[in-house]
């Protein structure tokens, strides 16, 4: 599959925003008010943004919109210049595989695969990630090893089943999986909440460094303001969200 036209056409000079939300409104089926109502949110390519949002503020909804798993009733979601609404459901899934890496709060890995296979899984669903690794003159396996090393995961760890790793190791494997094949955007949803306080900052620093190295924009979502220190920009979901009435996420 060729690279996305908007991305190639614009080139490095005027690289499209990693994320652009415009006049976005989303309401879960059956809800009586908008769960999300965002006038505009723009994350530039390579930008690292901390988005503060307490639970129930529509975080989950926002992540699903950015991932293209759901489409807004109104407004535009553009990822790397591509309007997600313009794509079919299957194409959105492939687009997500190619352009967005996710790190979740917990249980990011398939327990029955080795750490290495978990990392490589991102490439299995994405021809573009494989292509980008090939262009860089490497192989997915070598790239997985390289990323793992940078994230302090030894080669011996990589061959162990994911279920045998500590939570911290699992989160780093998840980060490597999000980053492999250089997607334009990494979305992290409370990835440190299961870690010890002293490990939290170390993990965030690793993530920031690796996103910078890979040239990926980072959208880091957390309720914990204390983690916001090293980011380019800090946003509060409550301020960009214009929804009236209660702001309950669907149960």
């Amino acid at each position, binding site marked *: 599959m060729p690279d996305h036209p908007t991305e190639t056409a614009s080139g490095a000079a005027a690289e499209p925003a990693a994320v652009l939300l415009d006049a976005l409104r989303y309401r879960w089926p059956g809800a009586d008010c908008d769960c999300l109502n965002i006038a505009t949110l723009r994350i530039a390519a390579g930008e690292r943004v901390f988005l503060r949002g307490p639970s129930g503020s529509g975080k*989950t909804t926002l*992540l*699903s919109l950015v*991932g293209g*798993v*759901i489409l807004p009733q109104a407004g535009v979601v553009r990822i790397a210049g591509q309007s997600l609404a313009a794509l079919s*459901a*299957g194409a959105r*899934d*492939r*687009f*997500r*595989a*190619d352009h967005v890496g*996710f790190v*979740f709060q917990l*249980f*990011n*890995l*398939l*327990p*029955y*695969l080795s750490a290495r*296979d978990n990392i490589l*899984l*991102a490439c*299995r*669903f*994405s021809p573009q990630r494989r292509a980008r690794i090939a262009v860089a003159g490497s192989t997915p396996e070598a790239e997985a090893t390289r990323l793992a090393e940078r994230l302090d995961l030894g080669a011996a760890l990589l061959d162990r089943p994911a279920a045998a790793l500590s939570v911290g190791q699992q989160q780093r494997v998840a980060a490597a*999986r999000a980053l492999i094949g250089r997607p334009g955007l990494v979305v992290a*949803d409370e990835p440190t909440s299961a870690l010890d306080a002293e490990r939290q900052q170390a993990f965030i620093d690793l993530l920031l460094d690796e996103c910078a190295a890979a040239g990926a924009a980072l959208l880091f979502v957390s309720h914990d303001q204390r983690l916001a220190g090293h980011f380019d920009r800090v946003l509060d979901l409550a301020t960009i969200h214009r929804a009236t009435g209660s702001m309950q996420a*669907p*149960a």
Partner: protein
Amino acid sequence: MSPVFTLSLHSIANRRLSVLLTVIAVALSVALLLGVERLRNDAKAGFAQTLSGTDLVVGARSGPVQLLLYAVFHLGSATNNMSWASIEHLAALPQVQWLVPISLGDSHRGHRVVGSTADFFAHYRHGDRRPLRFAQGRPFEDKPAEAAGIFEVVLGAEVAARFGYALGQRIVLSHGSLGGEGGPRFADHADKPFTVVGILARSGTPVDRALLVSLEGIEAIHVDWHGGAPIPGLRIAPEHVRKFDLQPKSVTAALVGLKSRTAVFRVQRQINTYPDEALTAILPGATLQALWSLVGIAEKALLAVSALVVAVGLAGMVAVVVASLGERRRELAILRALGARPRQVFALLAVESLLLALAGIALGLVLLYGAGAAFAPWLSSAHGLQLSLGWPGVGEWRLLGAVLAVSLLASLVPALRAYRYSLADGMTIRV
């Protein structure tokens, strides 16, 4: 390999124990189904070949199944005998190669006594034209000159085994064939005991349960009888029966072999329209098939039950996979976040169930052939049932195809459920 297939394999390997038990359940059910189908076919084939190599069975005018039942299976009795004149007429027909007369009417402890000629051993064939084999001894004497030769009997395998008879044993025949052992009998031919001269090997045919004597023997024990009862005041010692004409006046039926099978319908019509006596000739193979359709209902029920067992096995498999889905919703959400499409999630679960079913079918075949190889000798010796161990036949392929089709349908259940989960959950589980 597609990511879905690799994932399925890993996922299966991760749940080895439950998967193994599921596969074993499916395998046992498949082995049972195919085993029943195979036994059914082999029993049917064996039944249809109870009598082979005989072109026509002839008896007094009656229904074909009735004639077959008494002439071949020794069940029930003939309404009429056929005259010796008819036998001679038939034997002299140019198309007839051989003719073996059969005379029924006496019994020994619940087992039928079959009077015939020694040709019986030469021409009675079963299965794939296999002759009767002697486990011990020899046939009774044909056209005996000495009085002693008249009272010789050959035992079917089951008769010898049941009563523990050995060669040289002297046994007494009973008049009539009513009842089993200890049942009502008209009278014993106690004055003229028979000597066991041969014991047949098991053949899986009614001959196993019969005692065979010469036609002269049958005549000899009845020389001092009339109208089914001993003639009062008349007693003829065995050593004197030779003085009487032991040529039978009538017999019960006859097995006929033709020189050419192509003449069979013509000869049948000729016999059926024989003007001097009302006779019926049947083609034993065709009538055996007709009889099987009567007794074959039980085997159909057996097949239906084993099909149900397969359904239960597959239902168990679906239950195991569906039960695993609850704990795997997280896994499905991860796959979605990585860009797996809902239909790939669907395929993942479908492939998984299908692999289980295929493994079950394969293991079932292994079990079937293993058990077949282990039990075939016993089935053959104890029940005279020839179990074929060949490549699956058309019927079995059809059953395998049906099992596969049902597994395919069954695999849709967890797959559809996973599909619905993955649409509803997206990348995150909201629990």
